[in-house]
């Protein structure tokens, strides 16, 4: 007569390694296939005048506001940058080419103007300039050129990789 439980050893669950390894390898291949290394994304903070505020009014004294106007040219690329601060006014003409490198000198000039106004900047974001930038942009201007202008105003990257902040308070002037 067979005693119940006498062959328990034979009933023990065996860990099947081969299917497990198969599954793990399939998982590994799946994740390697879907992994897509990509650049990191970052943000520029933008101030918008509140709805009740007049479109061209700023709460800062006029001497503390850097006014920038971006004018679109053919094919909606940047054509002219007008900048003014505390009585100084400059106009930079750009070559409205689809090639970013050809348009870049106008943004570099804007950056140099901002550097002259703010100084060499500060690596501490909390200590960035109190000067506020107000940007008026042509409706049709390509967004890439708007971002280039904001970059020129916001700061720069030093050779050692450190980011130097110039103007952090950037406001869009409400389209008229």
């Amino acid at each position: 007569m067979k005693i119940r439980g006498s062959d328990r050893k034979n009933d023990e669950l065996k860990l099947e390694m081969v299917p497990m390894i198969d599954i793990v390898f399939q998982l590994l291949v799946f994740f390697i296939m879907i992994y897509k290394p990509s650049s990191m994304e970052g943000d520029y903070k933008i101030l918008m005048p509140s709805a009740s505020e007049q479109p061209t009014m700023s709460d800062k004294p006029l001497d503390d506001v850097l006014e920038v106007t971006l004018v679109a040219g053919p094919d909606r690329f940047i054509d002219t940058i007008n900048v003014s601060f505390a009585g100084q006014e400059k106009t930079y003409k750009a070559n409205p080419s689809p090639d970013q490198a050809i348009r870049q000198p106008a943004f570099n000039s804007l950056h140099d103007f901002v550097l002259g106004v703010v100084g060499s900047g500060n690596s501490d974001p909390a200590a960035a300039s109190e000067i506020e930038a107000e940007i008026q942009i042509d409706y049709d201007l390509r967004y890439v050129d708007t971002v280039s202008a904001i970059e020129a105003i916001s700061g720069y990257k030093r050779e050692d990789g450190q980011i130097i902040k110039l103007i952090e308070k950037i406001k869009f002037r409400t389209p008229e």
Partner: protein
Amino acid sequence: MIDMVFQLVAFLLLIINFSDSEKSAEIQLPLSSIVKPPESLPPYKIILNVEDSGMIKFGTFPPVNLNAIRPILLREIGAASRLDVLTEKINVIIRADMNVKTGLVQELMDVCKKEGLESFSMRVLERMR
């Protein structure tokens, strides 16, 4: 070897960013050298993707035009208020295509502003050297 493979699987699981579902793959973001990924998360965020065509995409919903974005904003503002997040604390992140008209982005900001949203971020891609 099995240990190694398990570690690889765990590593790949960790680095896969599942929040990408909020981003629209068709959008070509402008590049910038001086931005870094945000160090802290806002209490509530609304990511609006502005496509080259001018259509606005939110989450996994189909793209809509500017006139149809208000109901989406109101629903999100409602969801934020249920989490005790004030409307002015909601961060609107605009992921606009590099070729989109800037005026459209400004109009989108205006629509958001009319609903009481005040915090705006323009998302760009970090330029690799």
